[in-house]
Structures are given as C-alpha cells and as structure tokens.
C-alpha cells in the first residue's frame, strides 16, 4: 500500500495504482482522451499531466503509478495552463464543424474545451485538411480524418480487444492518419467499436449518419437479443423510430464494446417480413383475420378444454424470448394443454436434458464473465467464440493478453482466438467426448496417465492441457462450453465426461466454474423456466408437488418428449397439434424432410411469431407477437445473470405482446394463467426457481441480478462412465468432406437475415473450405459449387480459409433461403458432402 496526497487529501491506495485511478477515487476530475481502462496506457494526449512534488516534469496521471509519499497537485495553475495549452493545440487543426458533425452534443472534445479550454485561439494560419469529403470505409463506418485527435483508442480497440487489426496508422507527425488497408475497412468485422470509442466525430456510423441530434433522442437501456453473452445496449429512438444502438463505457458485461450484430442488426425489427395481423388458414389458404376470429378458431379447433389430449400436442419456443413469456408458455402447455412435450431448441440432439442438472447446479459460473475469464486456466470447447459470442471473445483476448492466464481451445472450426491460446485443437463433431474423457482421466491420475488409445490423435493437446490444469500454480479453472457439443450425436456422453472433468478438478482442490456459450440470448433462461420436456421451472422433476401447489393444477406426471420425438410423432400421426412460439423449425431443424412431413401431417399448427418464415407459411394460425424492443421482460445470459430487455416502442400493427397473447389464449380456453403484470409473473417464477427465492423484479438493478447457485453438490462417489468411442468418419478417406454449420461473423441465428444493415454486409450463405482442398478442386473464393450430401444438395459460393482442416466444410446456418437443413438427417450430425464445382 502507498500513502499519497492528492490536492491536499491524504489517502492510501494499493501499490501500482495509477495516479488517475487514485484521483478519480476521490472524485477529482483528471481529463483524458487517450486513456480508457480497457487499454494499456498510452500517455499520448497529455491532457492528464499533473504536478508531482520533487519531479522535474509533470507526469501523465494515466500511466504513472503512485509511489509512497507522493504528493500530487491536479488543480494548480500550471496544470490548468497545460490543459488549456493541449486543447488549444488540438483545436488548432480541428475543423470546428460542430453544427454538421454527428458527434455534436456528445463530443468529448467539445465538452473538454467547454470545461478546460480557452475562449479564444492564437492560431490564425490555415488548418490542415486531409480531404474535403468524408471517406466511406465500409457499409457501416464513415471517416472524417480532419476531426481526428490521434488518441488511438480505435486502433487499440481493433487490435487489442477485437483482434481484427484492421485499423492502423499511416504516415507520421501531423500527417498521421488512422485508416484501413487502402483506405478501406471492407474486410473488417464491422463491429463499430472504433466508432464507439472515438471521442470526436472522426469515425461515424453510416446508418445513423445525419439521422438526429443526440439531444433529440430517447434512450432505452436494454439487453441484446442475439447471443448469450447478454451485452447491455442503449437503444436510441427518435419519434418512436429506431435511430441507433450504442454501448456505454464500463456498462454491462460488454463495457463499451458490441459486435456487429448487436450494434447494427437490431433493425431486423423493421423488416418488411414483420407480421402485423393474425392470419388463419381457410380453405387451404392463409388470410388475415381479427384477433377475435383467430382465438375463436383456436377454441374451435382445440375443442373443449377438458377434452384436450395432451399427448397429441407439442410446443416449441424460441430461446430469444423473455423468461416471463417462456415461463407462461410452458405453464400454458402444462396446465391448459396438459402436456410436458416442450422444447426450446431444434438444433441439438436428444439426450442432454438428463445430464444437464449436474452441470447447471453448483458447477455453473453464476459470476461475472470478467471473473470467469480471469481464471488461471481457461478451457473453451466446442465454439468458434469469435463468431458465436463475439464480445466474450473480446474479453478473453483482452484478459489473456494483459494477464497472461492460459487459454486452451478445442473446436471444430478455427477462430481468431487460436492465436492467443496456449494450444488449440481441431476436432470433428462428436470427438469432443473422447477428448474430454482423456483430459478428465489424466487430471485425476498421478503420475500422469497416458491418454487412452482412442484419444491418440489428441494426445499432444490433452497432455498440454492436463499438465496446466494439474499444475500447482493453476488454482482456478474455467471451462467454457460451446454449442458444437450439443449438436453432436453423443452430446450427452460429452457432457457427462465434462462434469467428471470438473469434479475431478474440484477434488484436486481447484476452483472450477463452467459456462455455456449459448448462441441464443435466453437459452439458459429457457432451461431454467422449464421449457424442456424433463424439467419444470427451477429444474424440478415432473410430479413436483410445489409446482402443483403454486399453479393449483393437476400436472402430467411423466416427462414429455423433445422436439425430435414431437416431429416424429407428427409425421406418424400420433401428435396432431404443434404450438410454435417464435421458432422456425422448417428452417432450423437439421432434417428438412422430417420437419416438412411433420408440419404437413400435424392437424393444427399454431405459429406465434414476429416475422414471417417458412414455418409460418405452413401454419394454420399465425399470431403476430411483439419483436425485440416491443415488450419488456427478463433474460438470463451465459453468466446466469438476469437482465432486463426493455420495450422502446409498442408492437407494430396489430401485433401484441407475447405474454398477453398467451394469457388471452388461456382465458379463451377457460383458464387463468397469471396476473397481467410482469411483476406478478416474475414473483410466481421466483416461487419456483430456487436461485430466485425471495427475489422480485425490483431486485434486477443496473447490473442485472446474479443469483448464487442453489444446486446440490455430488457426494464424491463417482459412477463408472463408459469410455466414448470415436465417431465414424470413414467418408473422409473417400474424398468427402464433413459438413458442419453454426453462426457466422455477421449474422445471428435466422433473425438477422431480416436486418437491412447486416444484409448489406453479408447477404448470402457460402461454404468455407480449406485452401488446399480448393486448390485441388481448382476453386477460388467466390466461385459457385454444389454441395451434395446423401440427403440433398445446395449451391453456394466458395470461401477459402487457410486455417481450415482439409476434411471440413462449413456453411453458416443464418440464411433460411439456403435450405441448408435439406443436407442433414435427424440424429446424424454431421453429414458427409461432395463438393462439385459448377460448370461455368
């Protein structure tokens, strides 16, 4: 600890604290441009120079650590004079075109001059002008070099946080200019974090350009609706219209960062594909109807409430919806429709729900992502984090680079994070189980066991990670689990071994935490709310007395069936009604022929959704639900943190809030689901979900609500687990590639296909293949190929990738019209494919 004096105030701070941090802890304002907590100090803008007694020169507070006995002055005449001089110098070349600058009104330079600057300038010579017109760097970023003050926040963000290294500086001195290669950023991530950290109007958002003055905007703090990272957003509207999305410094899990999807993709709510009125199928064709007609039709088709046959009904809900909506949905299915046939994802295999409780209890992180990525060792399995959870990727990169903690990656696809990992492993879907089992066995044995023969291909990687995990200086371990694992046919086995690995580490005295890397914003919430066949809310088993008490209802005692079985049953005629809430299985279910057959065989399909899709076109009733931003509710992110998704405009057209629709349907069918207020629903949830016991909606503060786990700890008596075997990939030796799918850099699930901005950046699917394979086939990026699997074929553009393993082909699943699921078959992920170059 160091005792220091700032402006006459004595205080004690930890060694290594920067003068700036110490001053700010006393609410002493020390102005800065180049400093931001996330970046290593640069000390270049010189705004933060302060006087330090017995130091010949003034010192930059942002980079100078305190020393015991240090006496600092931040308010002296010399300091004030220096700040004024720096601002006069910065303004000397600044164009001062504030009236036509998007940044005007929220510009750090403006505010700083207002506070610390001189009223007049001595400089009368001509200002430097880089160019008279702004430079469009890509579809979302436009640049005015004349306004730049060279704080380098954008460059450091791009290099050290995003890892894209797309922005850099050319020339030197007064000619220094930040830019991308050849004055273009068309190859970058388009995340716009450079815009976010720009203190002036140098880097600007194209979609927001000239849309509004900041003071005319209404701001709503909300949670991103795409992936599970759960970034905090500020949505700005002007006269009810979406104007822009921003992030705020040091706010939320994401701080000031967002990915391209979160920052620019929210305009999917303005898509022409929005459903504005209920539709009903009459004489084979869909036609618009009123809400009353729609409800009446439903009552007619479903029959008398007491005659509803629960086993003939199934429900599938999107994990993009709020906890309250999802809770009401499963409650409605269980109490009104009397069925446990409920599921929340169509992309994964069967057999995971039974093994989940061991992972989501005491092992689950339920701490800030910042803490999770600060562990001594981080093992991330089954995700291209750069594409799946971009902001989690940023945090991992920043942390590993600054603190040198060790990152290990095992995934099907290469990602940008590989470069920051101690070791990375490429494997094929289904091989995760054997790899994890090898590590689990190795960390539990002493001396170290050799990996089992089946894991031989991963021996080097498993040895490296096992030795790090076992090392005495590794006291904390975080395991991040991506969605690739849940797609593989042996997902259940992989998850069991994962739990074993974590328990083994726990027994070895390590502090462990697990976090899923969900691709849907509220997947964790969907599970906790009981949108699954095996568990009621709070992971309670069917037949749980407490649930029956709270709901005052008789509940089906047996577990229900998952989406795969539901579709099979529809196809073979034993299930007749599907309720699809926000989900689009026709596009997403990895077996097109099955889902289409199920849809056409089911007697009655209800689709409640915000956007038209191939699924809604096959439905019998379409109920227009609110989209993101049109209803308020809570979401639970990867951390297990509950956060608010807030309404910033009413539902469009005749659309209604999803929870209202569910309540109304229940009422039509003679039931009362819950109170009409969000608070009431939340209170009911809190009665059933142990981690929320005693909580109310008001407990969700600015930082959300992170509940400690109520999960049970195992007694240490481990069951014998069968060793996994390798998945058969014999097709690889026949020249076929293994087709996998997942998220891409510019799109999230099928939702962002409706975003005009994201579509302007990336509008169609592609197949990514190793460059060596492309060379063999004589293919170049952009050329068309046909992809043929045993189940179907599709034509798309080739994208070569030097990091790709030769046996792999990847097609993003973000483009419904590509009908990628025609190439997959239920229970067989992944598929062998032939790549057939198209004749020119």
């Amino acid at each position: 600890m160091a005792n220091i004096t700032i402006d006459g105030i004595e205080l004690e701070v930890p060694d290594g604290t920067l003068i700036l941090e110490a001053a700010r802890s006393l609410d002493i304002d020390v102005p800065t441009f180049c400093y931001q907590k996330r970046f290593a100090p640069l000390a270049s803008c010189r705004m933060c120079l302060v006087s330090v007694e017995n130091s010949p020169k003034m010192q930059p507070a942002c980079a100078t650590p305190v020393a015991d006995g240090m006496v600092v002055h931040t308010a002296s005449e010399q300091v004030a004079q220096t700040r004024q001089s720096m601002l006069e110098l910065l303004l000397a070349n600044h164009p001062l075109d504030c009236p036509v600058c998007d940044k005007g009104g929220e510009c750090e330079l403006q505010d700083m001059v207002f506070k610390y600057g001189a009223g007049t300038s001595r400089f009368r010579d001509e200002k430097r002008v880089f160019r008279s017109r702004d430079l469009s760097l890509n579809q979302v970023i436009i640049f005015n070099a004349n306004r730049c003050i060279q704080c380098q926040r954008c460059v450091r963000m791009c290099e050290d946080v995003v890892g894209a290294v797309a922005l850099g500086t050319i020339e030197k001195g007064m000619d220094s200019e930040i830019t991308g290669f050849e004055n273009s950023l068309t190859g970058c991530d388009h995340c716009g974090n450079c815009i976010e950290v720009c203190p002036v109007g140098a880097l600007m958002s194209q979609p927001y350009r000239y849309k509004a003055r900041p003071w005319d905007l209404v701001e709503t703090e909300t949670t991103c609706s795409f992936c599970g990272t759960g970034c905090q957003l500020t949505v700005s509207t002007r006269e009810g219209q979406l104007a822009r999305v921003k992030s705020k410094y040091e706010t939320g899990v994401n701080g000031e960062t967002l990915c391209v999807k979160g920052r620019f993709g929210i305009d999917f709510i303005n898509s022409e594909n929005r459903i504005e009125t209920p539709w009903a199928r009459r004489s084979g064709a869909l036609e618009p109807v009123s809400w009353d007609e729609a409800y009446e039709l439903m009552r007619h088709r479903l029959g008398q409430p007491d005659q509803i046959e629960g086993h003939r009904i199934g429900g599938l809900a999107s994990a993009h919806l709020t906890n309250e909506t999802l809770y009401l949905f499963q409650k409605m299915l269980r109490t009104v429709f009397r069925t446990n046939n409920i599921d929340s994802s169509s992309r994964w295999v069967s057999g995971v729900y039974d093994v989940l409780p061991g992972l989501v209890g005491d092992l689950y992180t339920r701490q800030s992502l910042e803490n999770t990525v600060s562990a001594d060792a981080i093992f991330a399995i089954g995700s291209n984090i750069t594409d799946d959870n971009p902001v989690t990727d940023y945090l991992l990169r920043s942390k590993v680079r600054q603190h040198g903690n060790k990152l290990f990656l095992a995934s099907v696809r290469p990602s940008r994070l590989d470069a920051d990992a101690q070791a990375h492993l490429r494997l094929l879907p289904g091989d995760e189980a054997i790899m994890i089992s090898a590590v689990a066995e190795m960390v539990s044995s002493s001396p170290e066991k050799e990996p089992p023969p089946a894991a031989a291909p991963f021996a080097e990687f498993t040895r490296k990670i096992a030795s790090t995990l076992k090392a005495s200086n590794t006291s904390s371990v975080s395991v991040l689990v991506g969605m690739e694992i849940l797609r593989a046919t042996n997902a259940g086995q992989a998850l069991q071994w994962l739990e074993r690995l974590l328990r083994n580490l726990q027994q070895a005295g390590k502090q462990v935490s697990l976090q899923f890397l969900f691709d849907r914003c509220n997947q964790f919430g969907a599970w906790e709310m009981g949108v699954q066949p095996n568990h009621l809310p709070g992971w309670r088993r069917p037949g749980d007395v407490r649930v029956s008490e709270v709901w005052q209802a008789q509940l089906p005692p047996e577990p229900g069936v998952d989406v795969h079985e539901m579709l099979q049953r529809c196809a073979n005629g034993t299930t007749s009604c599907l309720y699809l809430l926000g989900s689009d299985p026709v596009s997403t279910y990895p077996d097109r022929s099955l889902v289409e057959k199920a849809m056409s065989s089911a007697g009655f399909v209800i689709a409640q959704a915000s956007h038209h899709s191939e699924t809604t076109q096959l439905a019998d009733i379409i109920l227009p639900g609110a989209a993101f931003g049109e209803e308020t509710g809570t979401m639970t992110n990867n951390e297990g943190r509950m956060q608010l998704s807030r309404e910033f405009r009413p539902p469009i057209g005749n659309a209604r809030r999803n929870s209202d629709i569910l309540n109304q349907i229940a009422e039509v069918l003679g039931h009362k689901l819950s109170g009409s207020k969000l608070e009431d629903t939340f209170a009911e949830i809190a009665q059933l979900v142990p981690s929320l016991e005693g909580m109310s909606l008001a407990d969700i503060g600015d930082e959300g609500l992170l509940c400690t786990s109520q999960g049970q700890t195992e007694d240490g008596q481990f069951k014998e687990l069968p060793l996994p075997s390798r998945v058969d990939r014999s097709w690889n030796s026949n020249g076929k590639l293994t087709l996998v799918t997942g998220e891409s850099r510019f799109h999230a699930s099928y939702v962002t296909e409706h975003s005009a901005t994201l579509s302007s950046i990336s509008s169609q699917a592609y197949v990514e293949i190793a460059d060596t394979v492309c060379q063999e086939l004589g293919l170049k990026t952009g050329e068309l190929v046909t992809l043929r699997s045993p189940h179907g074929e599709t034509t798309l553009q080739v994208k070569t990738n030097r990091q790709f393993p030769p046996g792999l082909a990847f097609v993003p699943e973000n483009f419904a019209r590509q009908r990628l699921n025609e190439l997959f078959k239920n229970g067989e992920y992944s598929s062998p494919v032939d790549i057939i170059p198209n004749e020119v």
Partner: protein
Amino acid sequence: MNEKVLLRNIDTPGSHNLAAYQTAGGYRSVASALADFTPGELIELVKTAGLRGRGGAGFPTGVKWGFVPRDSGKPVYLCCNADEAEPGTFKDRALMENDPHMVIEGILIAAYAIGATTTYVYIRGEYTVSIERMEAAIAEAYSNGLLGENILNSGFSHDVHVHRGAGAYICGEETALLESIEGRRAQPKFKPPFPAVSGLYGFPTVINNVETLSCLPHIVERGADWFNSIGPERSPGPKLYCVSGLVRKPGLYELPMGTSLRELLDEHAGGPRSGRLKAVIPGGVSAPMIPANDIDIGMDFDSLAAAGSMLGSAGVIVLDDTACIVRVALRIMEFFNHESCGKCTPCREGNAWAAKVLRRLEAGRGQREDLDQLAFLCDGIFGNSFCALGDAAAWSLGAALKHFRDEFERHINDGKCPYH
C-alpha cells in the same frame, strides 16, 4: 592529449578488414575480457572508468548495465544504437565504415558483461556503406570464431544481427528503436518499465550507442584509470566531435572530453567561414544554440548542461554572421515537424504550427503576435511532450528566440528576410 584512440585505425588502408584490425591489436581486449574478467568485474571496470553514453543522454554505461536483472532466466538482448540521425552528426558512421571490428569487439565486451545472447545493430537505412561494412565484418567475425558459438573457446556464445532502419529520426529513441525491431510502428513507449527490465520482446535489453561501445576495447586494454584521466572527472574519455556548418575545416575531430568549444573551433576547425562567429549549436539540432560570446565552455555533458545547452551527439554546427537565425530556426523546426512521430499532442500539433509561423516570418509575412505565438508554442511543448523530441524542438527554438529576438523582429519590421 591529441592521441587518437577511437580513430587510431582510421587512416590505415583497409582498416575495415579483420586483418588490418587484428594487426593493430584488435580483438585482444575481448579475449582478455572473456578470460580475465567475470561479467560483474567488467561492469565495475566500466563504472570506475566513468564511461557515459555517447548517444546524447550521457547516462553512465556501467550503471545502465547494472540494471539488468541477474539470472532472471530470460534472454538478455543488447541493441547497438546506430541510427545516427541527429542533423550535424556523423561520428558513428565513421566508426562503422572504417573500424567496424572495433564496434563488434565493443559489442562482445558489453554482451558478455550483461549476459546477452544476441545483439541487434540498428543502423540508419541511409547509411548504406556502414551497413555493408558492418555486415561484412560480422561475417568475417563469424568465420573466424569471433562470433557465434563458443567465442575464442571461452564458452561464451553470441550472435549479432544488423537491423536496417527505414528512415525515421524517432527510431534513435531507444523505446521506439525496440518497437521498430519488433516490426511495430516506431513510437516511444512509456517508461517504466525500463528496457533493462522489459525491453525487446519484453526481455531485459541494454541499448548502447556505437561510440560508447567502441570505447570498451580501449578501457579493457588500458584500464579504468587511463580512461578516467582523460578530460573532466565526471565526463571522462576520448570524444568524437562532428564539426559542420559555416566553418573553414568541417570534419570529425577526436579530442578529450571537455575540450573548450573555442579551442575546437579556432585551433582545430579553422574558425568560422566569414571570420565572424554568430553562434554555435554544440550537440546536434536538439541542443540549444550558444551565442558567439559564450563559447569559452568545455565540451562535456555537465559544462554544457550548466550553460543551458547540451553535448548531445556532439554535432557541432557553426553559424557565422552570414547565417539568418530565423532561417536556421525554421530549418530546424521543419526537421522536427517532419520527424515528429505523431504520438503526443504537443509535439505533433505544436511543431507543425511553429513551422507554419516560422515559414511566414522568414517569408516576410510575420506579425508582432507571431513572437508571442512562438513563445506560447515553446511553453506548450517543452516539458509536456512524451519523449525528448518535442522538448528538443521547443528548446532549440526557445534559444533562437532568446538570443536573437532582434533578428525575428527585423523580419517582421522589414517585411522580408534581411539575409536573403
């Protein structure tokens, strides 16, 4: 003392070849250092000799070496700063072109003292002959067992690489030099950490100037007392002075540290070209100019510092009475403006505006307020810039304004330059 030490081989034909160097006794010092000294004893020797860095800052070399943590388990690097880019300076070039083996021998002694495995010689890109000669000499040294594995059977191994600069003055600043070697944009980095603790690639690194390293073989050969006896007590040793400008006999002179500026000019360099001296810049353009009346001053670190200037790189630029000080100030400020790396506000913005104002003044379009503006710029830059580049620009301009304000005023009053 007019004995040549650093330049003793310079007139020998083929002095840059190994044979000539060895004939003159070369590489005996490193043999002695490796055989007779522990690294710690070498550091003590250099401390006792009082050798101060010849790159410009004058920091005691042995003390700098002592900052390298012992047995950290990390590789240690030595960088030879041969990015001699200070206008008016050409001493390192003469050493590298004519006596590259002396530089290599110095490198080996320093490397052994600090435990370095690898040296990077960072040579200014325009120095094509220096680069050729150093590369040839390094190759000769490798093939004769003077570099590489197990040098002179001592068990000490060392590699030397030449890194060619790409033409930026800032690369002479040691942290920017390291960034440049790492392939990054050459800009100075915040200290601490100092390079001795975390330098090249984050490992302990010592950066020494060519002339500094060239002193080492002589210190090992002739002892600390001999070195210490040359020149003033606190700035001892032989010194290379680069004399240029409006002077009758420009050239490179080896004289003891502390030789008076008047002696250097009048007795060795033949005096100002016109016979009437106006001012002298004693240490490259970073050093404030000294008016003609003040040249009875010792050319060493402490004496010049006490007089408000600096020895710097000992680039002595002579200005006789035909020189226009405004033009000199403009020329210097154009240089600093061009070479500012652009990192910090005062140097990037301030130098550019100072150059703009000086251009107008020299063109006869100056106004009275311009002098206040220049004074403001000097105040705004000096002491506030990130590295010494901005300080140097402001310091030089400040001296011109202080000593020759009348010349600036004449430019304004006459509406033209009185000299051109």
